[in-house]
């Protein structure tokens, strides 16, 4: 029943997309498309939510006579799928709500409206797919529709290039998955997931599939070093689509990884638990360092997606390590942490991208160095962006903290692992996780501080207006969710229990009946956290402090110019910029990771020339991995291109050569 409803939702979305092709330029098209998307996604959200909360182990399946003819298109909804559908459709509802307001400013609706519903539909379909063909078909459809959305503003410099790199990397990922499914399905073509589940795979087949799944899903999710497209493509799309791509589509990629590795592939080997978290840890730290060096607000957010994907993969990898060593309870904890972070990240990342979109609409600027002081002009946006910033920086009492805390708890269980390499590696990964969380806080102090605080740096920032009420509504819903998931995490963990149960055979102890809404992942003597109580405590403390001060302290307030070493009326340009804010961190980390070099040119005394400071940074994954490959392809193309302008005689020689070689082969063969 639920499956039918969901498929009908998808069908309506696809129909909307098709109908939007001729109707996109109509006055009402924007409202209609987004309105319909809200309605349909809400229905899908509710349906998936019911399935998830019902939590039964029974999965319902459905087969449609489309796709591969002898196979048909298989669809299936189980708790894992239901969870990810909740994530997808929650993102869809809020993004569409945001789109209602944002869409009014869209210059070329015809390039957005047809693809937007298709993108939503494709993400739903990926999660529902139950055979390799349908999965990859919808997976690539998802890439393609989002590519079209990235290309919506193709005239802006860099966007077309971003779209190109995006689609190329997406295809690389699909190719890897294609190989993976080729191995899983075997030469006879058992593409249905049921058939794959029923097959047992040898060790090296599983290893290759894992590697391919890491490339395939990892490139879509943004694992370093396959992340290069992400910070280019995500910001290039319209903001609500950026939110969907960063907040939701990367999660669909995570879903792909979980589905293949946890569900289809069978029991893991222990070294998977070393490889995957290591990749995750490196990704997390690299992602946040990239973000710190970034002054483009949307690109900064995109790099944070890389970071959070790293955190999610740490959790997933730990789950693999525990599962390989028959520690299902620990595996369930790690998996729950990862999945909870999936949900949390989708919420706060959408929120932040909406905020960035509101700023972009209000000022036309993405460069933080040209913003500032927006808190005065856009107080509500600033407030929700602050909530999002706190959540993504893993600060209590918001939701980001809870899932990272759970991940830490899983890491703390690592000494029980029998493998020495894991014993040593996992704490180091814990250090990486801690580092990335701390750096994320630094980064969001920068992002929020430079964008919203201080004084406006440009007239555009000076004249910004608060964004429309639809967008605000979307952001407030998400901000409320950030807090809700932060103070009542127990309910969310319980909702994830059937997912963990299905994948690891165990689940985190139920949190529902614990007193005071506390969460206790393992045992009370070990660790516990109570977001609600903390929140209440803080509120109480703040309230009592306010009360005391209002009662007894002076309430007098006077406005005056700020202190700036005695220089009056300092220009807003003397404020700390994003670049100067990160200078200490750049010196500490950037000199190693980015080979950052500063060149200071100071004119001699008496010279009136301006002094210059130039920072050079290298993008190592690009320089080491991508540039050589691109160079190699170019070189090969150049060399082979000489064949294009040979003489006819030379071409005949080629034919002759082919003939002689084949004849010789034949002669030797026989």
């Amino acid at each position: 029943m639920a499956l039918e409803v969901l498929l009908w939702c998808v069908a309506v979305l696809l129909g909307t997309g098709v109908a939007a092709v001729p109707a996109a330029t109509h006055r009402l098209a924007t409202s209609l498309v987004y309105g319909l998307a809200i309605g349909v996604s809400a229905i899908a959200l509710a349906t998936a939510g019911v399935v998830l909360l019902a939590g039964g182990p029974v999965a319902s399946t459905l087969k449609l006579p489309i796709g591969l003819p002898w196979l048909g298109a298989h669809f299936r909804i189980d708790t894992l799928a239901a969870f990810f559908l909740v994530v997808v459709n929650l993102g869809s509802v809020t993004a569409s709500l945001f789109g209602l307001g944002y869409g009014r400013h869209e210059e070329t609706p015809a390039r957005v409206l047809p693809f937007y519903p298709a993108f939503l539909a494709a993400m739903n379909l990926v999660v529902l797919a139950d055979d390799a063909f349908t999965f990859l078909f919808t997976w690539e459809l998802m890439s393609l529709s989002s590519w079209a959305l990235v290309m919506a503003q193709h005239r802006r410099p860099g966007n077309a290039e971003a779209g190109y790199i995006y689609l190329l990397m997406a295809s690389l990922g699909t190719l890897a998955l294609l190989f993976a499914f080729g191995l899983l399905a075997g030469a006879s073509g058992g593409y249905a997931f049921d058939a794959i589940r029923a097959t047992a795979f040898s060790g090296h087949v599983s290893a290759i599939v894992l590697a391919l799944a890491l490339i395939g899903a990892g490139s879509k999710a943004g694992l370093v070093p396959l992340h290069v497209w992400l910070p280019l493509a995500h910001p290039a799309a319209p903001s609500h689509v950026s939110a969907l791509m960063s907040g939701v589509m990367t999660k669909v990629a995570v879903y792909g990884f979980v589905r293949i590795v946890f569900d289809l592939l069978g029991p893991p080997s222990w070294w998977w638990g070393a490889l995957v978290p290591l990749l995750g840890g490196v990704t997390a730290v690299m992602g946040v360092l990239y973000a710190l060096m970034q002054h483009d607000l949307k690109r900064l957010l995109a790099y944070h997606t890389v970071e959070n994907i790293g955190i999610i993969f740490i959790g997933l990898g730990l789950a693999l390590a525990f599962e390989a060593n028959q520690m299902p309870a620990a595996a369930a904890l790690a998996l729950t942490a990862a999945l909870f972070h999936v949900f949390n990240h989708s919420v706060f990342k959408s929120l932040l991208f909406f905020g960035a979109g509101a700023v972009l609409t209000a000022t036309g600027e993405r460069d933080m160095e040209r913003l500032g002081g927006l808190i005065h002009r856009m107080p509500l946006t600033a407030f929700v962006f602050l909530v999002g910033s706190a959540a993504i920086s893993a600060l209590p009492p918001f939701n980001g903290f809870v899932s990272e805390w759970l991940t830490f708890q899983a890491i703390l269980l690592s000494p029980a692992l029998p493998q020495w390499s894991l014993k040593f590696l996992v704490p180091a990964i814990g250090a990486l996780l801690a580092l990335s969380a701390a750096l994320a806080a630094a980064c969001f102090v920068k992002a929020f501080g430079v964008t919203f605080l201080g004084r406006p740096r440009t007239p555009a920032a000076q004249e910004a207006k608060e964004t429309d009420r639809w967008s605000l509504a979307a952001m407030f819903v998400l901000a409320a969710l950030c807090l809700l998931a932060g103070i009542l995490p127990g309910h969310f963990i319980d909702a994830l229990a059937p997912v963990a149960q299905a994948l690891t055979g165990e689940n985190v102890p139920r949190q529902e009946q614990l007193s005071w809404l506390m969460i206790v992942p393992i045992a009370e003597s070990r660790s516990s956290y109570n977001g609600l109580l903390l929140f209440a405590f803080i509120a109480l403390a703040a309230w009592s402090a306010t009360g005391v001060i209002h009662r007894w302290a002076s309430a007098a307030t006077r406005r005056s110019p700020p202190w700036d070493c005695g220089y009056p009326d300092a220009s807003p340009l003397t404020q700390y910029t994003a670049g100067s804010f990160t200078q200490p961190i750049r010196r500490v980390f950037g000199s190693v990771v980015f080979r950052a070099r500063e060149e200071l040119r100071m004119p001699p005394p008496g010279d009136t020339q301006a002094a210059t400071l130039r920072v050079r940074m290298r993008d190592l994954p690009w320089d080491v991995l991508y540039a050589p490959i691109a160079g190699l392809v170019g070189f090969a193309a150049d060399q082979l291109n000489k064949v294009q302008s040979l003489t006819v005689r030379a071409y005949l020689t080629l034919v002759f050569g082919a003939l002689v070689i084949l004849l010789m082969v034949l002669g030797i063969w026989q």
Partner: protein
Amino acid sequence: MAIVLDAVVQLGQLLVVLLLAPLLTGYVRMVKARLLRRQGPPLVQPYRDLLRLLRKEVVLAHSASWLFRVAPYLIFATTWVAAALVPTFAAGLVFSYAADMIAIVALLGSARFMLALAGLDVGTSFGGIGSSREMMIASLAEPAMLMVVFTLSLLAGSTQLSSIAVFMQGPVGLRVSLALALVGLVMVAIAENARIPIDNPATHLELTMVHEAMILEYSGRHLALIEAASYLKLLLYLSVIACVFVPWGIAVSGQGFAAYLIGLTLYLVKLSGGGLLLAVFETAIAKMRVFRVPDFLGAALMLGLLATLLLFVSRVA
């Protein structure tokens, strides 16, 4: 009935930390002054400062936003809650299960987050320089702190400070990793509380300061709250060190009134000892350049990691 007692004790602890925090700061200042052969301010000077600040009017910059006015309350509240969660004289109180050590670190992170933002709010270069450096320091201090937490929790099988304290009261013996963890924790504590050699709480020379630069624009009741928060933070770290490494005497829930009294007395002794050591250390050492700080904290981080790894080795042996 026990619950009620626990709740009362918990409330008592809330008040105790709030009341003791300025005293600790005043004590450290006094000891430092005496070590420098100065008379120094009286022990209660911090209380007086706070009261005077509360009575003064607030001077706000034109460009200050609502965040600038809200931040002090949040900073104070968060720090206060964090400090109250650390077992001072009694462990295993009702609310101590609301947050473990990781959460306490993260709560302090929240306070710092707000403080750094407040530093940027007015839009002067001083606020910026302070926030920027503070976040750089924090980005290394937090992982170092977490590695220490790691070591402790691997040893004690818990991240709950109460449980750790109880565990440490037992026969733990001398361990290298514990020593490393202690050193790491002390280094983090020094950095987090803006003490010498990382920062100088007494200086107002713009280019060398971190914490003071951030709060340069604050005045009146706002400044009072922030000052109180920093007093609390110092107390918090000393309490953590005391509770983990010298846990003796901490009362456990249900041991009765006398145990609480003993615990409180011993707690005061521990604090005075810790404050003395801090003052001696600060007097004996010079402040370092800002860009030496990463090395300092990097060392702390390495010590924490080393402590974790050594733990495996010593466990086998």
